[in-house]
């Protein structure tokens, strides 16, 4: 019997991509995707449920579809993406409801994978060069996104203790770059003059978007419990990142009172660097990726390779324009293909 998977945040970048990858896996029988917004990528057999992540709806979906695997990809790690109140609702309250539903009496859930971020380690001068999964952060979290992720991880830890029969996997991803994803960092790299904090050239680590998807599916398929850092091999200085990205001019930001100095630029919409990224531009962060490798995962890209791949796709986009046409979800059409008796489905053929 194959897996019955619930994907949260189907309308987001990660939810959509993970669902696409699951569809290609014959071992997955059922994919249910949840979001308030419509999927932005074409999906063949994923069932989309438009719902917010309230506890009662989640518990009913989990029970009705006999969900055995929950892939929680709907954690917001880019604080420029939404307001901090909205982020708190999504990250903390959403996760709380999801875990409550997964742990309800009679729940069929046996596998929970959560996509968190290496933001939970922070970025401070007293940090070690490499954070292992057990290294505590050096300073208390001060940014909203870090606080919310720490809260989420706390809920997950409680859930794992209360539900020893469930395989719980927590993946912490470092900064993601790739051909498709847009983040505060990728936007900064695409500006004509890349910002840096004067006097600092910290080392960065990246993970490629394809490696992100593959790692989520890897831990799911193999039911690997525990906490894992997911990041490409190697650290490279910010100046080298910019050199790979076309060697553009760099504009210095003042090393002191940086957020205050940036406020007017943010107002004008010229440059939006969140606080956690400003810290990263001073002190950088490296995480030890050997535990996941030890479990058998192979990365396709190193940190520097990820940057190069990102930049190659930017060059391509600049030459030929947006290569993939935007997908528009149309409920009636999707329902026709999935459920109408008129459609001849290959699985029924065989």
């Amino acid at each position, binding site marked *: 019997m194959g897996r019955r998977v619930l994907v949260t945040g189907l309308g987001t970048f990660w939810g959509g991509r993970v669902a696409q990858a699951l569809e290609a896996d014959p071992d997955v029988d059922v994919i249910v995707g949840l979001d308030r917004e419509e999927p932005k990528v074409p999906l063949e057999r994923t069932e989309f449920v438009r719902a917010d992540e309230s506890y009662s709806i989640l518990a009913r979906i989990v029970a009705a579809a006999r969900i055995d695997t929950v892939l929680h990809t709907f954690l917001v790690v880019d604080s420029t993406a939404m307001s901090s109140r909205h982020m708190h609702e999504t990250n903390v309250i959403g996760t709380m409801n999801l875990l409550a539903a997964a742990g309800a009496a009679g729940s069929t859930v046996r596998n929970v994978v959560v996509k968190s971020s290496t933001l939970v380690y922070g970025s401070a001068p007293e940090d070690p060069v490499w954070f292992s999964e057990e290294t505590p952060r050096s300073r208390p979290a001060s940014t909203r996104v870090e606080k919310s992720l720490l809260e989420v991880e706390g809920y997950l830890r409680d859930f794992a203790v209360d539900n020893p029969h469930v395989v719980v996997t927590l993946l912490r991803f470092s900064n993601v770059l790739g051909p498709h994803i847009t983040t505060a960092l990728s936007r900064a790299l695409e500006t004509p003059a890349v910002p840096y904090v*004067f006097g600092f050239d910290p080392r960065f680590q990246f993970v490629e978007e394809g490696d992100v998807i593959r790692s989520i599916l890897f831990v799911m398929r193999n039911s690997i419990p*525990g906490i894992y850092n997911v990041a490409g091999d190697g650290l490279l200085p910010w100046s080298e990142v910019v050199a790979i990205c076309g060697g553009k001019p760099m504009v210095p930001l003042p090393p002191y009172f940086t957020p205050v100095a940036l406020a007017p630029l943010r107002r004008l919409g010229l440059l939006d660097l969140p606080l956690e990224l400003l810290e990263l531009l001073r002190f950088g962060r490296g995480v030890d990726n050997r*535990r996941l490798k030890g479990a058998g995962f192979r990365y396709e890209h190193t940190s520097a390779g990820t940057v190069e791949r990102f930049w190659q796709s930017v060059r391509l986009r600049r030459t030929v324009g947006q290569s993939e046409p935007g997908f528009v979800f149309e409920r009636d059409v999707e329902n026709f293909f999935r459920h109408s008796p008129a459609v001849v489905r290959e699985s029924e053929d065989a």
Partner: protein
Amino acid sequence: MAEHRRVEAAEHPGTLVHLPELSPAEDTHDPRRGDVDEWGRSEHMREVARRAYGPLYRSWFRAEWEGLEHIPRDGGALLVANHAAALPSDAPVIMHGIEEELERPVYGLGDHMFKQLPVVGTLWSRLGGVVAHPDNAYRLLREQEQLLLVFPEGNKGPAKHYSERYRLRRFGRGGFVQIAMRAGVPVIPIAVVGAEESMPTLFNVPGLARLLGTPYVPVTLNQLLLGPVLGLVTYLPAKFKLRVLPPVHFDVPPDRPRYSKSRIMDEAEVIRQQIQEALYDMLRHRQSVWFG
């Protein structure tokens, strides 16, 4: 999947999980351009710095070594030295000397305060400075088998008044012994004479230090002679003598989570005593601060 094999999950001994067969490790494409390593050190920058620092090392400080044969040509070792001068002059002398003589890199553990300063922090790290964190030290010593320099006195050495020169402060909490035990490497004590006189502290201004958030703010003889700015960056030409003492092996298994605290404190005190006695011995034979 067909090619599953059963292995034990590294982090959860006892729980067996199915893992796919490992594909033979193939080299992933890595388009690095610079030579900055994971610690932030650049061999190219070190080379430039060595060339610039060479004349100062040879003609100004006229550094003289004895016992260099105690430093291994390969394998990790923790170098432990006394620390002095308001703006410590000993770290560059030790690192430069060993890199020139043994042709192997030396990394230096230091306070994270350096990393917080713009420009200075970046240069410090390009030239081999690494934040003093046990994980950093372990990885450098045990996994990468490097030479690592540490000053267990911390900033208590450079912060002391000139009248207390060559009297070693407390050796921290013995953390350096624990790191060496865990990494399974010897401690190599080094006694340095000359640094104390290269920039003697006449007064400390604790109020200003509190205001600036630095551990100490000294007024040095150099500043009285050369002015506040030039005196901050110019050392007096004291003669440097460095004595490397025989390596101290601990004879305990590495990689233990804990070691006997009393054993650590004893070993730390023994090493401190050795350096202190070597210093007294060298001072007994020193005829001149400037000519050795």
